[in-house]
């Protein structure tokens, strides 16, 4: 196990290097310039732009810039944003809690919906409940979040005027009012996002449970005279969850990606919206850092999924 872990961790290094090189190349080749706005403003002399470019090292050849970036990164220096002239790690740390809160709550909501619905639907396959659940799940993961998000805003904010649609990270209220306000503003983005994730998860849970529920040991358990509840919870779900857990882990990167869209719609100041605004402003260091964080997460969750799999299912061994 230890050897396996070490080997996997060693593989991570070249793949992250490869990813960073690719990202850097793409960004370097893409059109645009962080000081573009200065170019169209006649009041700013061109020398200012030129000196800013030299100062921030934008005029050096791409390989030089890449080596500089990667060595700084290795020393824990993430660089600083061209646009806001703030250190990138500070910028990301400022935004990370919001993203984690939204993604975490959405994930919890998704699990809370997907588990009971999926299990219940699988124990009564092709019943009316199963049909409805499957249809809703299909609709749920077919509709993109930018559509459902706008729909929610239209219904709950504009027609009904119940909920605000601009998310604020630092609410002015304190105490219970803060919780209430936080609840009100979070409910739409979390629901939109959580249901989209939950829909696909429901399908996974259902099919995993269906696979297990017909196995002989389940019949044996029933034959022993165990109650249905005990059979499902103790014998079926536990085994069925093995593939589901890995799937959830492997889905994490997609979830971060989905968060970008949701954050943009509801003006949530998370790293997803930071990524979008940095791309629009050609703020290369921030784009690099955020995408690199995403890349690390993908690699990390892949690793966790593999390890969890072996831990949950003793039949698989890594020695």
């Amino acid at each position, binding site marked *: 196990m230890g050897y396996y872990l070490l080997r996997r961790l060693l593989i991570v290094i070249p793949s992250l290097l490869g990813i960073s090189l690719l990202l850097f190349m793409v960004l370097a080749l893409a059109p645009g310039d962080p000081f573009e706005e200065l*170019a169209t403003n*006649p009041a700013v002399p061109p020398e200012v732009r030129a000196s800013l470019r030299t100062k921030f090292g934008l005029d050096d050849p791409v390989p030089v810039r890449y080596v500089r970036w990667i060595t700084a990164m290795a020393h824990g220096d993430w660089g600083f944003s061209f646009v806001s002239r703030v250190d990138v790690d500070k910028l990301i740390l400022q935004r990370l809690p919001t993203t984690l809160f939204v993604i975490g709550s959405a994930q919890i909501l998704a699990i809370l919906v997907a588990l009971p619905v999926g299990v219940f639907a699988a124990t009564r396959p092709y019943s009316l409940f199963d049909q409805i659940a499957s249809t809703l799940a299909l609709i749920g993961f077919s509709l993109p979040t930018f559509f459902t998000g706008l729909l929610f805003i239209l219904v709950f*904010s504009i027609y009904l005027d119940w909920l605000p649609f601009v998310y*604020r990270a630092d609410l002015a209220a304190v105490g219970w009012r803060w919780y209430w306000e936080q609840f009100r503003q979070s409910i739409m983005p979390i629901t939109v996002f959580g249901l989209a994730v939950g829909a696909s998860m429901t399908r996974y849970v259902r099919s995993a449970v269906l696979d297990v529920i017909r196995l002989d040991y389940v019949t044996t358990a029933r034959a022993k005279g165990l109650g249905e509840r005990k059979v499902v919870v103790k014998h079926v779900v536990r085994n069925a969850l093995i593939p589901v857990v890995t799937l959830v882990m492997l889905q994490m990167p997609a979830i971060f990606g989905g968060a970008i869209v949701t954050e943009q719609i509801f003006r949530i100041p998370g790293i997803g919206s930071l990524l979008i605004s940095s791309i629009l402003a050609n703020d290369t260091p921030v784009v690099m850092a955020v995408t690199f964080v995403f890349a690390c997460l993908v690699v990390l969750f892949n690793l966790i999924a593999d390890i969890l799999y072996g831990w949950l299912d003793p039949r698989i061994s890594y020695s």
Partner: protein
Amino acid sequence: MDERALRGLIAKVKVGKLSRRAFVHKMLALGLTAPMASQMLDFCGVANAQAKFEYKPTKRGGGGALKVLWWQGATLLNPHFAVGTKDQEGSRIFYEPLAGWDEDGNLVAALAAEIPSRENGGLAADGMSVTWKLKQGVKWHDGKPFTADDVVFNWQYASDPATAAVTIGSYKDVKVEKVDDFTVRVIFAKPTPFWADAFVGTRGMLIPKHLFADYIGGKSRDAPANLKPVGTGPYKFVDFKPGDIVKGEIFADYHVANRPHFDSIEMKGGGDAVSAARAVIQTGEYDYAWNMQVEDEILQRLEKGGKGVATITPGGNIEHIQLNSTDPWTEVDGERSSLKTKHPLLSDPAVRQALAMLVDRKSVEDHIYGRTGSATGNFLNNPERVRSKNTKWEFNVEKASQLLEDAGWKKGPDGVRAKDGKKLKFVYQTSINTPRQKNQAIVKQAAQKAGVDMELKSVTASVFFSSDVANPDTYAKFYCDIQMYTTTMTQPDPEVFMNQFTSWEVATKENKWQGRNITRWRSEEYDKTFRAAEGELDPVKRAALFIRMNDLACGDQAVIPVVYRPRVAAISSKLKASLSGWDNDLWNLRDWYREA
């Protein structure tokens, strides 16, 4: 309109026959700026108009929270590094200049005790210096007094090339000296007719010496106050997250009585313009939203909800079509559109005139921009026509056809005109933006009727407006026949704006296409007039020179103006704010208040 006619108009204002505002509007129509117009009036001794904005609250504070929405959030809060207007606006909550520009182009004092003029001795007769008297008893948010040292420091800070301040243009050619603790003198290198640039308006916000003195030049990025501004403005800094939120709270020692009205301010960033409009106009969640780049049709639909409206503030932005004077299809010394070539078709004046007649500005206004863009034939041409809003624009397909026919461009079997084997075919490019593509279609349709073939091309905005030397599709390279975009005249003095037709500003390979003359149109007379205006101290004579320049460039169809685009903002029906097209949206934030 020449100098005499201008003087006649000013005389009319003086005796009250013509309102000050009507005069300013006339000058706007002539392609000048409101600040310049008001400068002319001041110079001729017409009394400065009182600000019309009425501030009703009778005490400081008590107005609750002011919530404004900027769909591109402020990313930094040092006015000397403000890359875009969003950053200037964020800084403007905390910092103030000596004076700002109101909507009619009048200077309104902020940190100055009075506006310099000849009468009060502020302006030197030779145009070589201006003396500013500073307001006394002003405090920075940390309690330190504001003095002349701070003003002088801002000049040192911004004019140091190592600081790389974007405001350097306003400070590098002047010298600033302290006369006494509350008086500073700005000294120019040559006679300068337009003196109100340094320390005024968007690029004039003042930062405190005691916090920035150690961070001048190369260390400028490290100043802690870059992110935690300490200014003299009506609101004190509370919190800032780049791109997301700027928060401020009332400054109890603010130097103007009874102001500000609000207890706190919150500027939220992110999202898109349409939903920002919704949050103000439809749901009332926010009080004000900036830069509504939204189709008028949508705005009107939202306004039916009644919680807010769209406000239109005139400024100096013009959507215009440029005609290339050089040949974009022949490469000379590694560059197309080289000055050594001449455009094979557009060098014929008849073709240019015909094209100008083929732009249906009225349809563009009616069907695309609505209130957010009014048809204009000017950077300027005939003032007679400008006076009325219902003026008929020369849109006339028959006349254009006739013009081309007379000039020898005959229709071929494919319906496209040709002369000497050259077909009237143009490539017409612009950036990707729905209104612009609609606009292109309108022009193409009319051109087709007149026998002119147009190939439409659209380029992603991030490429089109980039300064990427390697990319052939940038607006500055202009590697096609015709192109269209909006030129912004944010600076109150038209001089910088008008240098875009001078021959020394042509964008070429040599200057990496950084020159501002994109059309590559050149005229000796224009150059001469521009040089004359640079040193002309009498604002009226100077205005006449600018009008002449406008005449030259537009009369020769170097550009075809299409619509004039005012600033559009969304504002809650209860919020009272005085906005200006010649300064930041928040230029007069201290006077904003909410009606009960």
